[in-house]
């Protein structure tokens, strides 16, 4: 039989990794809060993907006017009520999901792409490289992110793109801090020393030996940060420096809704609920990932 000599199957070749993955999935599924987080996150991604096909009034997200229906309370025709333009709030809240997830992914993506390489370089090379990178990081971490982002958006001018730029600028230093400490502790590990001894280049050591070993805390932080970045972007929208109506965005909707309080309460309630659930979902999900991927770390 030729099968005895053929290449082992995928499952055989990766038996150890698959066993590990099954164990991770099993322990993740054992925690109700982690599963709740996963369900919420998946739910919002589905809403973002299929939103335009499930909302009852897709035109309401693009600045349609329907003044006869303005500020209607929640009903069967308008589940979340309507806003001051007569637009259906359920439609606008659902369609804003895509904006928020996109904003979160962009900010966290830029922050990891900038922060992780800098952190690895700082921790691995040490010396002057480390001093320069870490001092620069310290400066950016010396003021709360939301304040610095406010200053940057004030200078660039309001708008969702400028909000993303500002939040990306304040977000990367967190990853440098995280990865630097990890890379520093890895660089004297025997397997790194062994790689160096057999003549591996710095680039290879960083990519093959250091980076994969830093992956767990990065993944955990990135999933928590998705929620926090969405919250921060919504905060800028609320202040009036983020997304501008009529484009649907949760923070900006609450900002407008404030002028219609308290009589038209539903206007502010539903977009805020969406922000809360998204952030909660990513936090619970990230917490669950931390418990399985990075159980030793303890956070304040």
């Amino acid at each position, binding site marked *: 039989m030729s099968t005895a000599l053929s290449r082992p199957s995928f499952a055989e070749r990766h038996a150890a990794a698959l066993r590990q993955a099954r164990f991770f999935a099993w322990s993740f599924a054992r925690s109700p809060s982690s599963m709740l987080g996963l369900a919420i996150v998946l739910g919002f991604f589905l809403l973002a993907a299929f939103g335009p096909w499930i909302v009852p009034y897709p035109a309401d997200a693009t600045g349609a006017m329907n003044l006869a229906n303005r500020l209607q309370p929640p009903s069967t025709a308008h589940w979340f009520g309507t806003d001051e333009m007569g637009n259906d709030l359920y439609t606008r809240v659902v369609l804003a999901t895509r904006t928020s997830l996109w904003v979160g992914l962009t900010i966290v993506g830029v922050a990891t792409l900038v922060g992780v390489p800098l952190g690895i370089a700082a921790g691995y090379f040490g010396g002057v490289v480390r001093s320069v990178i870490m001092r620069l990081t310290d400066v950016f971490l*010396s*003021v709360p992110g939301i304040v610095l982002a406010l*200053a940057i958006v004030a200078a660039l001018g309001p708008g969702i793109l400028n909000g993303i730029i500002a939040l990306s600028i304040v977000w990367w230093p967190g990853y440098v801090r995280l990865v630097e400490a990890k890379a520093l502790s890895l660089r004297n590990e025997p397997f790194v020393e062994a790689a160096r001894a057999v003549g591996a280049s710095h680039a290879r050591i960083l990519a093959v030996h250091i980076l994969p070993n830093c992956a767990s805390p990065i993944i955990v932080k990135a999933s928590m940060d998705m929620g926090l970045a969405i*919250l921060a972007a919504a905060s800028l929208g609320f202040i009036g420096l983020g997304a501008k109506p009529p484009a649907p965005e949760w923070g900006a909707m*609450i900002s407008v809704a404030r002028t219609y309080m308290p009589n038209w309460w539903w206007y502010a309630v539903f977009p805020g609920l969406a922000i809360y659930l998204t952030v909660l979902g990513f936090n619970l999900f990230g917490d669950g990932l931390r418990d399985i991927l990075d159980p030793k770390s303890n956070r304040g």
Partner: protein
Amino acid sequence: MLAFVLKRLALTGLMLFGLVCITFVVSNVAPSDPAALAAGPDATRDMVETIRREYGLDRPLHEQFLRYVAGLLQGDLGRSIVTTRPVSVDLARYFPATLELVLLSMTLGVLLGVPLGMASAVLKNRAPDHLTRFVAVSLVALPAFWFGILLQLLFSVHLEWLPTSGRLDVATPPPPPITGMILFDSAVAGQWATFRDAVSHAVLPALVLSFPCLASILRVNRAEMIEVLSSDYVTAARAHGVPPLRVVCVHALRNAMLPTLAIIGLRWGWMLGSTVLVETVFDWPGIGLYAVSAAIAGDFKPVMGVTLLIGLNFMIANLVVDILYGVLDPRLRTSS
């Protein structure tokens, strides 16, 4: 020890200089023309040019930077276009309100967070523990600006227990200014009616601002308590027949408090930052609201002034925590 403190001080100085550079760069990449902004919308070209010369905005960048730093060293943060006052005067006027709010929130965070964390640790993995932990995660996820509006809706509009916004009713006479913190000033002056009014105004914003801090104090206290409760000396105390409540509240709590103190220090700057949102919701006239209204009007100098002030506070709080930890744990003085 002295070398450790000096080194930390030097680093803080370096960070402060870095932050000054950032604020300078940010105000100079602005696409809008600061001279035109200062001159107002109706200004002629000549007036704009005059202002440009007057503020030195026509000079090369490095010269402007030196002027900027020299001004900062003399406490000159520029002038606000909206209020037309120097930013330093505005900050002195608005900062006490923010300080009052943050101090109050910090107190609330500790008073609620420490006992909840303790209870959660003692009842580990039982229903109250799960509930508390879920609440802690929720508090971090709640958008402060949204939850503030909901609280206003419930307590101010629906129940009519508390006022919606501001620091005092229009009809309430403000106390003679000593610190600018109304709660403190009215208590010193013995104006208890004013004090009560100020408390009722401060409850909601302070509560909303305290949530993230409360959540982290709770988490850290719980984790620390769980560790301490399983330590040998707690077991020994129990074995000697010390009453359970005394073991938890005296033996264990004392040792679990240290990380909580660190959180308080680290959260200080973050809470100052969050006032940007909370003060906007509650129309609380502090530096957060000042920065936001300036940012919307495109008035940079106040925004940069607030950024520097909060950054300075943040750095000093971190410095104090570092030094305290250095005092308490000598190993940290020599590492890194």
